């Protein structure tokens, strides 16, 4: 039994899942234009927020997807203030509600209907296929209620005919041993987890903890090339594929070349706008990720500012797919200003990952010292050397501390406030 509606002809070759990924750029954009016109027509009728925002946009007059860039972006605050309980609960189609993480201070409740879960299951299957998941293989998946991505993944596993394994627990340090037992006892070839959880398994799970696992799909934060290499070599894991997606509708996966994420452009349109205004960032320039989900939903996201920082790549991928590529780097709310300079956990991670001793180590940045970058790392080592490394590359004063042998309980947040230090076990 499989849930998903067939949207494109399946290819199921070694390299390709479906015909969509073989389309030309022109054909992809024609498809997107058609979906955009239908989306605009629908939301202008049904949604008061977008009826105002899209006032100047007549669906019949949209001649290219570029026309969308004239529409002012939508913030989380816009959506929350426009949403009423009635909007969320009156529609009988909306059955499952996921919450965003609340990392910006406010949580958005995202309802999902069958149509949306069905639409996102298809590209999830495409991504799993690219990573090598095939019929009969076992995959330990994320806990099902964790995120829309996890629900899409269960449907995708069913479509491919692989065998889903659900471990007991959640993606936190407390459940590392449960997770590893589930992997070993089922001899799962695949695991699909969050990047922080992978790092926690790597750092706390013991030597060769992932021996026998062929592929790991991670989501939630980027992993550098040195970190991937170290994790694979020391844990026994075969290969890491990054997946990315947001509750608000972005969906992306890496192909076998691991050179940024291909966007699943059949379900979403992604843009990267500059940090200080809403014009498009050039390829290679870090900016803010904006998503338009083509899918019909009761909380539409059109030009929605996801809060992610991203960068587009304009050269064609070696795999030959014409799907655009983007790399997600970090979250806007993680920016810490030190001595007037904006610093992200992503930058600290890159520097640490180039150092053999600190590569793939768990850490958090502490917000609270305006003149000093405050970093806490898990485990010991030459902290003074790490301080110098960070200072030399980031040009700010740095304070490095260690939790010693105590694991960081940092959940999904790479930045914490000074007054919350006790919450991470420090």
């Amino acid at each position, binding site marked *: 039994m499989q849930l998903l509606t067939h949207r494109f002809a399946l290819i199921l070759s070694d390299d390709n899942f479906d015909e969509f990924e073989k389309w030309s750029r022109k054909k992809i954009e024609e498809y997107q234009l058609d979906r955009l016109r239908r989306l605009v027509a629908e939301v202008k009728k049904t949604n008061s927020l977008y009826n105002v925002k899209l006032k100047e946009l007549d669906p019949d007059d949209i001649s290219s997807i570029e026309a969308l860039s004239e529409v002012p972006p939508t913030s989380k605050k816009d959506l929350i203030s426009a949403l009423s309980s009635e909007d969320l609960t009156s529609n009988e189609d909306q*059955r499952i509600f996921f919450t965003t993480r609340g990392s910006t201070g406010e949580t958005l409740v995202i309802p999902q209907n069958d149509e949306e879960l069905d639409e996102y299951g298809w590209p999830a299957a495409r991504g799993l296929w690219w990573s090598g998941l095939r019929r009969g293989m076992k995959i330990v998946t994320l806990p099902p209620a964790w995120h829309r991505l996890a629900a899409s993944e269960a449907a995708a596993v069913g479509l491919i005919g692989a065998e889903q394994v659900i471990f*007991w627990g959640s993606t936190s340090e407390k459940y590392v041993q449960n997770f590893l037992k589930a992997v070993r006892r089922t001899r799962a070839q695949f695991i699909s987890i969050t990047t922080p959880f992978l790092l926690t398994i790597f750092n706390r799970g013991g030597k060769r903890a992932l021996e026998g696992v062929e592929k790991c799909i991670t989501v939630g934060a980027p992993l550098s090339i040195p970190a991937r290499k170290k994790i694979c070599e020391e844990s026994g894991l075969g290969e890491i594929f990054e997946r990315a997606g947001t509750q608000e509708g972005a969906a992306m996966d890496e192909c076998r070349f691991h050179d940024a994420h291909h966007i699943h452009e059949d379900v979403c349109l992604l843009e990267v706008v500059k940090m200080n205004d809403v014009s498009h960032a050039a390829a290679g320039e870090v900016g803010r990720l904006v998503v338009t989900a083509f899918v019909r939903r009761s909380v539409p996201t059109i030009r929605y500012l996801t809060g992610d920082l991203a960068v587009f790549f304009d050269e064609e991928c070696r795999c030959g797919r014409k799907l655009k590529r983007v790399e997600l780097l970090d979250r806007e709310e993680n920016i810490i200003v030190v001595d007037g300079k904006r610093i992200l956990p992503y930058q600290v991670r890159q520097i640490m990952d180039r150092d053999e001793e600190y590569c793939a180590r768990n850490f958090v940045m502490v917000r609270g010292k305006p003149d000093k970058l405050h970093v806490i790392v898990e485990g010991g080592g030459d902290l003074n050397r790490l301080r110098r490394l960070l200072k030399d590359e980031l040009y700010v004063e740095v304070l490095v501390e260690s939790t010693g042998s105590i694991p960081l309980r940092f959940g999904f947040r790479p930045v914490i406030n000074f007054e919350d230090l006790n919450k991470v076990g420090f």
Partner: protein
Amino acid sequence: MPYFQTVTSEIIYHSSDMLNAAAKLLASTMMALGVRKGDIVHVCDLGSSPLLYLQSKWFVSGLEVGASEIVGYKIICSDATPERVHVFADAYRIMRPQMVIVNTAINGLVRKFLDDKESKIVVAGDFEEVGIDAQLIYSSRELCFLYKCESCNGFKPAEGSKITYMGDRVRIENPKSQRGDISGILLKAGEYCNC
């Protein structure tokens, strides 16, 4: 076909038939607890709990229809760990669930956001680790559900489960062959419903 790890780390396999039968049992349990079509239910348990994964066909490959889809209620999903409880406060400002099913580990934390008595709170958990305040208990191994009878305060199984007594042992038999000795569950939970 899906494999599941139980709370005691055992790996078990449930066929599609078993999952579908268990989802029906969960649906009847939810109705017995007072949930109706159109209600909003917040299930605050680990994603690996059958209370959560049997709620929707979208959560487990092989499940054709989940309990929420059988009855027609809406569910708010949360991976219920103490670190994530803070997001519930925002969610409750936007939508007020008629029922909140909460595991014992975060029961106290969740109650802080639900002090206006608009939501019925049901404390739940796997019998291996549930506390004495539980009103809904399940076995992640046998996929059985028992809920507290409001009349006698004893536990009764979901409609459709068959209970048999063999001396001092109590066995439960679910449709599609999930069988198990639930003496331990009843020992922990308290008296069996005799209404």
